C-alpha cells in the first residue's frame, strides 16, 4: 500500500497548535510526519499525494476541550459532499484556505482521494479569553502553551493515530 502523509496542521501558539504538537510526539515514536501552518501549503502538499491523515484542532459545539475524534476517508468525503455550508463557513479568503477547501482543491487537481482527519476539540477561540483554566507550562518552548485539557488529550491522540497507521499498514 502507498505510504500515507501524516500532517500536523495548525498555528504554533495556543490550543490551535495541538495538531503540530501531536505530530511532534509521533515523530519521536518513529512515525514520519510533517507540520503545516498555512492552508495554501496544506493544499500543495495534498495535491501531491493520494492519501493523507491530517491532525488538527477542532471546535465542536457542546464538546468540551480535549476530546479526540477520528473521521475516516468516507466520512470526510461525506462531510465535503454535504458541505454546501462549507463554502460559507470556511471560505477561501485573503487569510487563507480552510482544511475542507484544501481537500476540495487538491481533489479537483486529481489528488487526495483518501483523506482521514483526527481532530482534537479545543474551546472556541473567544471563550479562551474568559476561561479560567490554567495553561500548562511547557519547558524549552517559547510558545504560548496548550491549555490543561488539550494537553492531557495529546497522549490519546498519539495512540489513535498510531493505531490508524498500524491498521493502514497491516
Amino acid at each position, binding site marked *: 500500500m502507498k505510504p500515507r502523509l501524516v500532517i500536523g496542521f495548525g498555528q504554533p501558539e495556543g490550543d490551535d497548535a495541538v495538531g503540530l504538537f501531536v505530530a511532534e510526539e509521533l515523530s519521536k515514536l518513529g512515525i514520519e510526519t510533517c507540520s503545516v501552518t498555512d492552508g495554501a501549503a496544506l493544499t500543495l502538499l495534498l495535491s501531491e499525494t493520494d492519501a493523507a491523515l491530517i491532525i488538527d484542532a477542532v471546535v465542536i459545539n457542546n464538546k468540551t476541550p480535549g476530546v479526540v475524534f477520528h473521521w475516516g476517508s468516507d466520512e470526510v468525503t461525506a462531510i465535503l459532499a454535504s458541505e454546501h455550508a462549507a463554502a460559507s463557513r470556511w471560505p477561501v*479568503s485573503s487569510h*487563507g484556505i480552510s482544511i475542507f477547501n484544501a481537500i476540495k*482543491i487538491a481533489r479537483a487537481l486529481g489528488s487526495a482521494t483518501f483523506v482521514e482527519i483526527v481532530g482534537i476539540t479545543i474551546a472556541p477561540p473567544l471563550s479562551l479569553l474568559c476561561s479560567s483554566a490554567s495553561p500548562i507550562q511547557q519547558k524549552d518552548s517559547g510558545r504560548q502553551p496548550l491549555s490543561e485539557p488539550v494537553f492531557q488529550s495529546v497522549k490519546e491522540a498519539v495512540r489513535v493515530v498510531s493505531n490508524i497507521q498500524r491498521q493502514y499498514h497491516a
Partner: protein
Amino acid sequence: MKTRTISVGYMARVEGETALTVKLKGDEVTSVSLSIFEPPRLFESMLVGRSPAEAPDITARICGICPVAYQMSACAAVENVFRLAISNEIRALRRLLYCGEWIESHVLHMVMLHAPDFLNVPDAAALSKLHPERVKGALKIKKTGNALVAKLGGREIHPINVKIGGFYRAPLPSDLTSLLPDLQAALGEALEMLGWMAGFHYPDAKNHYLYVALRHPTDYPMNEGRIVSSEGLDIDVSEYDRHFTETHETRSHALHTTHQGKTMFCGPLARLALNFEKLPPIARDAALGLGLDKDHHNPFKSLLARGVEVVFALDEAIRIIENYKRPSPSFIAIDPALSNAPTRPEASAGPSAEKHPSTRVGYGATEAPRGILYHRYEVGDDGLITNAKIVPPTSQNQRVIEEDLFRMGKLLSTLPKAEARAIAEQAIRNYDPCISCATHFLDLRFEQTE
C-alpha cells in the same frame, strides 16, 4: 414603482465583514454604501502606554496576511522617533522579507480569489478543475513567499524575528541561497501565469484615478520613499496628516481617507503607474508587453499589476540573496542617550505633543501588498507611546471602491441579478480589500426603483 433588490448573504473571497448596498432608480445609481461592520479593533488605543519597541509585534497582529507590512511601518515610524538610521544590509533584508509577503498575498488573491471572477467559475476548487497547472503553479509560487517569510521572520504566519533597528537574528547566507532554485522556478511560473491572465476578458471600466504611492529615488517602493500622486503631490511621510484626512461615516466602522477632499487609489496599480521606470528589466518588459505603461486606468487590470509585482518581488528576492552580506550586528541599537531624552517637538506634532512639548513624534509609511500603510507614534518623556495613528490601505481605498460601483450603475441595472452581483463583487476584489485591517465581509444588496 417597481423595486428590485439583489442581495448576497455572504461574499466570500474578501477578508472581514462588510455589506454593500447599491440603490438604483431606473438605470441610475442613487447611492452606493460599503458598510464595514466588523467590530472596531482599537489597536491605536492599545498601544498607548506601551514601549515603542513593542509596536512592530503588537501591530503585526492586526492582520494575518500582511503582518510584515505592520512590522515594517511600525519600525519605520519608531526609528523615525529616535532618528535611527539602519544599514544597507538590514534594509536589503527587510526588502527580502517584504518580497515574501507580497508574493504570498498577491498570488493567493490573484489565483484563488480573483481569477475565478474572470473565468466565470464559483471558486478556487472549480478553477482547479479548469486550469490545474495554473493552480498548482500558484501554490508553488506562494510556497516560496512563505519560505522567505519563515526564513527571515522565524515562522510563516505572524513572524517574530523583526525588531526596531533590524532583526533578532540575521539568516546565514546558506539559509537563503538554499531558496534560490525554488525562487528561480517560481519566477518562470509567475511569467507564465501573467501570460495566462493577460488572456482574460477585462471589463471596460477606464477612469482617471488619483493614484497615490511611495516613490524611492532608485528602487521600486517597499520600505521607504516620498509620498507621490498622479496629480503632482510629492511630500515627505511626516507631512501625511496635512494632506490626507480620515473621516468617520456612520455606515462604517472603518475610517474613510481622502486626499484634500478627493478620492484616492492606492495599491499595485497605483504603484505601477507611479513607479514604472523603477521596475527591474524582467518585470518592466512583462508590463510593457501587457501595455500597462500606458493602459493603467482600468481598475480590473489591478490583477495584472499584481502579477507584474509578483515577477518583480521574485526577481528582487533573487537579486538580494545573490548579493547578501550577513549584517553583524543584526540590528542597530537606539542611542541610549536618545531613548529617554526629550527632543524638540515636530512642527506638525499631534495632540499630545501640543500638551507636552517634550513629546517626540515619528512617521513611517511602507507599501503593504494592498497599498500605503501609514503609522505615526508620539513618545513621551517616560519613553512610552502617548499617541498612535495607523492608516491601512483599505481605508484609503474605501471611497474609490464605492465610486467604481457608482460608475458601474448603468451596467448593473441592465444585467440579470446574478450577473450584476458577480461583477460588483469582481470590482470590489480589484482592491483586494482587507476588512480586518480597515477596522476592520460582504452582504451585497441592490435596491432598484423605477
